[in-house]
């Protein structure tokens, strides 16, 4: 479809700009979204601890991955330092809530804002460099921040880490996983609506323009520097918010939790979920969280069938995770969200689909 300036699939009957700009493509899509959120609220009390833990993790990492998707998927920049921003948010929120008396629920978004400020600073190189060079520059931010966490005892507690209390609302402490799940769900919904909204705004289109063809964007009057740095700021906000949620969920923050491995996991989440897709971010986070559990089960079955494999169970699990990711990238390079769209299209055209 490369020859069409604005490709539209057949069956897309939108005729006004307002339609084009709607938050949800169709009414049923909106209802489906609302139904999913309500379902999550209703079902949560009946879930096991283990499932709740997985859902909370998906929510937290999904928020952070969403931030990275704005940067990488939407604006076409790259960051190998996302986990450092995630960590900065975690430490900021712990610091604010412990040392200044600001309630945790307010400290969390504040931590997001503090991380935005840091992200804007570390995003400055993006004004000048791009591609692999930018990747290495952001790698530096990972190391600088990680070292800062280990040394700034007044802020992070140094290598001993710092404690982060569970949030409370008028004396009602969110001290169970179920209560915390609702908080994470709230922020997940807010984040996803916010980013979806951003993408249909003037700024959102500018970000996409920077990604698609920066020269054309500049000629059209898009301020490249501003939008590149801005996307770092936006991405850091969500990283910081996710980090703050993570800190108060674990109730403890340690410098060890925010290594480059986590940064790469975030990249894996958005590549697997679908670059530039809002829903893809959370699908990717879910995939990365659930895959090890699935592989654990598979490895256990395999060990039951072939007892000789029992000793290597852990190894098989790790290998299968790697293999699954590689296979996924080969057979579904456009991410889970693409697979989902294909599935939906196939249901729509049901009797005639292949």
């Amino acid at each position: 479809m490369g020859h069409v300036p604005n490709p539209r699939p057949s069956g897309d009957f939108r005729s006004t700009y307002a339609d084009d700009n709607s938050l949800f493509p169709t009414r049923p899509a909106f209802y489906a979204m609302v139904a999913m959120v309500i379902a999550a609220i209703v079902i949560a009390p009946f879930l096991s601890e283990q499932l709740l833990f997985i859902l909370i993790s998906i929510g937290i990492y999904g928020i952070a991955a969403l931030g990275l998707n704005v940067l990488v998927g939407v604006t076409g920049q790259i960051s190998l330092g996302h986990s450092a921003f995630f960590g900065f948010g975690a430490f900021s929120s712990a610091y604010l809530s412990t040392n200044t008396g600001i309630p945790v629920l307010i400290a969390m978004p504040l931590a997001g804002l503090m991380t935005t400020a840091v992200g804007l600073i570390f995003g400055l190189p993006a004004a000048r460099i791009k591609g692999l060079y930018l990747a290495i520059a952001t790698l530096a931010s990972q190391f600088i921040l990680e070292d800062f966490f280990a040394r700034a005892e007044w802020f992070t507690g140094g290598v001993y880490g710092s404690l982060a209390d569970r949030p409370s609302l008028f004396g009602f402490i969110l001290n169970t996983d179920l209560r915390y799940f609702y908080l994470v769900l709230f922020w997940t919904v807010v984040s996803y609506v916010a980013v979806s909204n951003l993408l249909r705004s003037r700024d959102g289109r500018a970000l996409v323009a920077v990604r698609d063809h920066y020269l054309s964007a500049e000629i059209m009057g898009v301020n490249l520097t501003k939008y590149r740095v801005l996307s770092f700021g936006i991405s850091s906000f969500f990283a910081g918010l996710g980090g703050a949620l993570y800190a108060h969920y674990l109730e403890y923050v340690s410098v060890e939790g925010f290594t480059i491995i986590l940064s790469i996991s975030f990249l894996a989440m958005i590549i697997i979920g679908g670059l530039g897709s809002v829903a893809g971010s959370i699908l990717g986070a879910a995939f990365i969280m659930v895959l090890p559990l699935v592989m654990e089960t598979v490895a256990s079955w395999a060990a039951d069938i072939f007892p000789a494999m029992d000793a290597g169970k852990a190894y098989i699990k790790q290998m299968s995770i790697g293999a699954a990711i590689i296979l996924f990238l080969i057979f579904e390079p456009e991410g889970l969200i693409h697979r989902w769209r294909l599935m939906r299209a196939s249901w729509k055209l049901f009797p005639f689909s292949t």
Partner: protein
Amino acid sequence: MKKLMLGTAIAAGLATAAIGADDKVFVGHLVDYTGPTSFVGKYYGPGVADAVAYINANGGIDGTMIELESIDYAYKVPEAIAAYKKWRGKDMVAMQGWGTGDTEALISFVAKDEVPVWSASYSGHLTDPTGKNPNTKKPAPYNFFYGPSYSDACRALVQWARFDAKENGTKEPKFLHTGDNHPYPNAPKEACGEYAEELGFDVLTPVVVPLKPGDFKAQCLTIKNSGADYVFIGNLGGSVISLLKSCKTVGVDTTYMGNVWAGDYLTIKAAEAQNYVFPSASPFWDSEAEGMKLVKEIAAAAGTGTDEAPTHHYVRAICGTYYMKEAMEWAKANGGITGANIKKGMYERQDWVPEGLEGVCQPSTWTSEDHRGTMTVSINKGSFVDGEVVIEKVADTTLERRDDWLGY
């Protein structure tokens, strides 16, 4: 009639089995078999697990079985916290912990939940239960460990070094701390440096050596240029071996004094170390001490140590587990096995040696104001000679129980 009796017997049997199965307490067990401290973790971890298995096989805690779950957290603090929170949901009455980072991070958690912890971290920060000493960062009411604290062990080494320097005629000996910027090597850094200064050492700026093994020639050059006479090694395992080898290449001439985890026959063998000084709090595997009979029974029952001799870390793990066992027995007789009762049980005895471990575990006393079980440090010197590791004890130092040393 016969049928009825048989039926009753079966029913009774089932009932006892049911009680037997129900009557158990849960203990969480953190181990590092795959992380940076696995070098010693693979001896300490099985020590705890084997001891618990042996206790269960011999009647448990007066009939109550210990349900032990070991989680390999690879020395990652967040994973340890996650494991702890998982266990909290299982009514954990006690915990066998591991590293300094995770144990210190869990201080507030275990105090709030009243879960006594026997850690393999001997950080001095865990010894002040009430926060009596103004130097204490955080009171640690539910933390216990068997053996001298890292700080006290280092102080004993420094004391020995002072004596050694006098004998060698070194006028103003220089002391240097090496170790990663990590809670474990950092734990004794300040406390030990202060005492060294008090004893008239010239205390040099500490050198950071990563906990992960690597090429440490750069650090060794710094050590060489500093002219340190006594180098304290705060790391353990592969990192120590790398450091000793790199320093040999560079030609550093000094006396190395390791932390308790940094000294065992495997480290000395791999590093081919000479005159390597390290503390201990238990006999070594080939010791003839009376209590070693029980230690060897425990190992034999689990099949541990059949191909190679376990390091003394295994023996210390058994001591730590047996103090927990006897505190649980006291708790059971005095109101039931709960975390708070087990903690009280730890204060009941003076110069306490667990039954059957005479000569293995040093007589220890814990009080509600002082969790320094023992102040006695055995100092050993190990050398690799003709393919054999020779370890000899050079001193048994008992430090003064100073108030300003409590909690750090």
